Every structure is written in C-alpha cells, then in structure tokens.
C-alpha cells in the first residue's frame, strides 16, 4: 500500500477516534500535539488502526513507536 494511501486512511482513523475533523497528520506528530491522545485513548486508536488495515501489532512494536511517522512506517511493513 502506498504511503499516501496509508496516511489518508490513518487520518480518517485519527479524526474518528479523537472526534476532531481538523487533524492533519505529520511524521513528527506525537500525543503531545493532539487533545485527548492519552494512554486511555491510545489503545482505542491502536484497535481502530488494526481493524482498518487488517493488521495486528505486537506490544513491543507499540512501545517503540515514538511518533506518527514511525506508526505509518510500521503499518506500511505490515499491510
């Protein structure tokens, strides 16, 4: 799957989970930049990403993701 397609689909997931249509994804985006992105909503986001892209993460992979760029890269490796 192309990176642009992943970003497109991932943006929809973020907007839905955080209830905010104005979210624009960037590689350096982290939880500090998005309201309500905390440890509670993070797992809902992960579940929604897994469902949307039909993939499964390992806990170790999640722990290593530092920003949205790394998340996109990880999704790219799995789809």
């Amino acid at each position, binding site marked *: 799957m192309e990176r642009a397609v992943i970003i497109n689909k991932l943006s929809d997931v973020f907007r839905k989970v955080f209830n905010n249509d104005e979210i624009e994804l960037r590689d350096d985006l982290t939880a500090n930049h998005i309201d309500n992105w905390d*440890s509670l909503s993070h*797992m*809902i986001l992960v579940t929604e990403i897994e469902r949307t892209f039909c993939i499964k993460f390992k806990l170790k992979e999640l722990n290593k993701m530092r920003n949205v760029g790394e998340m996109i890269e990880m999704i790219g490796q799995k789809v």
Partner: protein
Amino acid sequence: MVFTSLNFLLFFPLVALLYYISPKKWRWVTLLVASFFFYINIKPVYVLLLIGVTCSTYVFTILISNARDDSRRTLYLVLNIILVLLPLFFFKYFSTINTIMIRLLENWSLHWPLPEIKYMLPLGISFYTFMAIGYSIDVYNEELDAERNLGLVALFISFFPLILSGPIERAKNMLPQFRDYRPINYENVTAGLKLMVWGYFMKLVVADRIGIYVDLVYGDISTQNGSSLIIAAVLYPFQVYADLGGYSLIAIGTARVMGLDVIQNFKRPFFSTSMAEFWRRWHISLISWLTDYVYTPLSFRFRKYKIWGIVIALMLTFLVSGIWHGAALTFVIWGLMQGTFLSLEAVTNKKRTSFEQKYNLSANKIYHLAWMIITFVLFASSQIFGRAATIDDALLVYRRILTETGSPYLDLTTLLYSFIGILIILLKDFKDEYFQGKMSFFSNSRAWIRYSAYLTIIFIILLFGVFKGNSFIYFQF
C-alpha cells in the same frame, strides 16, 4: 537518616563536596558508598535485602540480554520479578494474609500452623523494588542494554535521594547520567538548592502543620462530628501533596545539586479538570510506571473488548496501585474508586468532548473551574479511604459528613497556619500554571529580590516549621 534530620543537613553537603572532588571516573563510587551509608544508617540489616534485589536484577538482566530465544528471556524476566517481589511480599503482605487466614480458619475451628508475625517494613522497599522490576522489563523489551557494571546497577537501585520515597526513576534516565562526567555547574547547584528549600517549606511548614489537625481528627473519629471530618477530608489531599510533593522536591533538588536530572513527581495537580488529567499530574513517577508496566500490557491484551477492555485494564491497574500502597482493604477500595472514576470518564469522554464543542466551553474559565472543583471533591472523597484506619472508620466518616453537622473542632492556630500555607502553595502553582516564567521570586533577575525571597522562605521555615516527629507519609508504603 531522613531529609528533615540534622544528620542529613551535614551528610548531604559533605557528599556533594566529595562527589565533585572525586576523580571523574570514580564519582559513581562516591555516590554508591554514600547511598549505602545513607541506607545502613536507617537499619543495617535491611541492606541485605537491597543487595539481594540488586544482585538478582543484575544477574537476570544480563541473562535476558544474552538469551537467544524469547521463551528463555521471558523465563528469566519472570524469575527476576518473582525473586525481587518476594521480600516485598513477605514484609508488606505476609502478615496481613496470615492474619486473614488465621481468622478465616478459626471460624471453621481449624488452627493455622504459622504464628502471627509482624515485621517493620524496610523503608523504601516498595520504591526500589519497582525500580528494579522496571529496569528488568526495559531490558526484556530491548529498550536498553543490560548494564555490565554491578556497581552502577547497585547505585541505580540504592541512589540515596530516591530510595526512601522515590520518585520512582527509570534506568534509561539514570544509568547514562551516572556514567557521564558532570562538571560542577553553578546553575545546577542553585536550582537544586531552590527546589530543596521549597520542598522543606512544603513539608515542614505546610504538610506537618496540616498533619496536626488531620491526625487529631482521624485519630478518634468516633468523637468527631461531620464538620470536623469534612475539614480534615478537605485538608488531607493538601497534606499528602505537601508531604510527598515536598519530599520529591528535596530528592530532585539533592540530585540536581550533583548535576543529575530526576523525573518530576507532581505537576500542579489541583488545577486538573478531570481525573485522567489529575493522574497525569499526581505522583507522576508511580503512575507512569504503572501505565508502562501494568496498564499498557493489560489494555493491549484486552483491546478486542474496545472501551470495556480499557475499563478492565484501568480497574486492575488501580487495584495494583491500591495494593502497592498497603496491605489493607481500605487501599483496595481506594484503588477501585480511582479505577471507577477513570473508567466513567473513559466511557463518557466522547460525549463530554461533543458537549464542550457544541457549547464552546473549551475556553470558558467558569466551566474549567467547576471541573477543577469536581475533580478535587472526587479525589478528596476517595482519600478518606486512603487515610482512615479501617473500612468501618471510612464509612463512619462519610456518614457523619452527610448527616451530622455542628460546630467543628477548631484549633485556630493550626488551621490558620495550614490555610495560609495551602494558599501560598496554590498561588505559586497558579503562577506556574498560567504565568510560567513571570513574577518569579527565586529566579528574579534582580539579586536583591532573589536573596530577599531566599531569606524570607528560610525564616518562614525556621519560625513556622513543625520540627517534631517529621516522618513522611509515604515511608509507610
């Protein structure tokens, strides 16, 4: 030796001096010797447990690092966690479980063969055990390499500013700092001393003054009416904040004087507008530890249940938090209350966000203030279980607060000093929250304002501090 003892005021400058004049390659040895001296000074025999936890963690982290297959790595991790938890379990929980078993079995006319044993809890064991476990999980998760220098592992686990009550640090933050050469730096020394002075103010002037009233009221709940109990219930969260928050600042300041950065433990918690935000600002080092090593694996495991998976993970995490605080049902209920508050927020979060967007409330100050008050009331009410000796006592406090009013017990001097102390802390937190970097006395560019502020706060500590029986609340945990 505790931070509020005269011994510490002699010990610490001497250690800082020795640290800076030691050859740079051996500075960590100075800190290690000082840390063991500090801990031995409390009760020599308990240092054996510290050595045991250190050796187990050292050996198993290297085994984890060297193991080729995942099943062996997991086995070594589990073995280390069990070995490290054994002393904590024995000293903290064995007596309670044994007592419960004796009573239960006696109801069935059965005699439990083990005698009732009560040991003094080794100071700091809950804190250094969590630090050791966190380090071994980090090595298991390949977030850092196993440290091959036993002395550095020992220093991480025993580091004297942190060993008694935290902050619960991470190896990936501390080990590189212990390895580094840090030249003496005027900024670090003064910043550290300022933190320490403010920490002493919080502890000696505010926490211990409030403690006089709270201890008296909670000491004999049956003779107190609802009005006295409500004052004590409102004061207690401030007492804990000033006590553990003050302790943490002294610990962070002590480390900073020697050029070492330690995680912040409190971030103006009473300005939180939800319980989730509150727990990101209160006892941060414990909650981030629980988030990383308990909540995240649990919520990951239960993620297929979506929001209910989060609820289960939250309840279990705060159950662990409650049990960590003590082997009593009051702490279990306290933990479950936090889990319930956070679960309710998680379930209703989307509705709250939509409501705020619909009525444009995100910039409404009165709306925020209302949520700050609600958050405080929720936390203060849960702290009744954190403070009362038994469940019956806690229930009696609630009943009296709701049904029995009347003239409260008034110790005017204590209450007046307590309220002024709380007001000063809240004003400082308000300034730091909304006017960061402005109106600063301790960091003012004008020297006469800075020095006046130092002298004023030292005089306040000497004049209004409570210098009797200064144990810290979190020593019991």
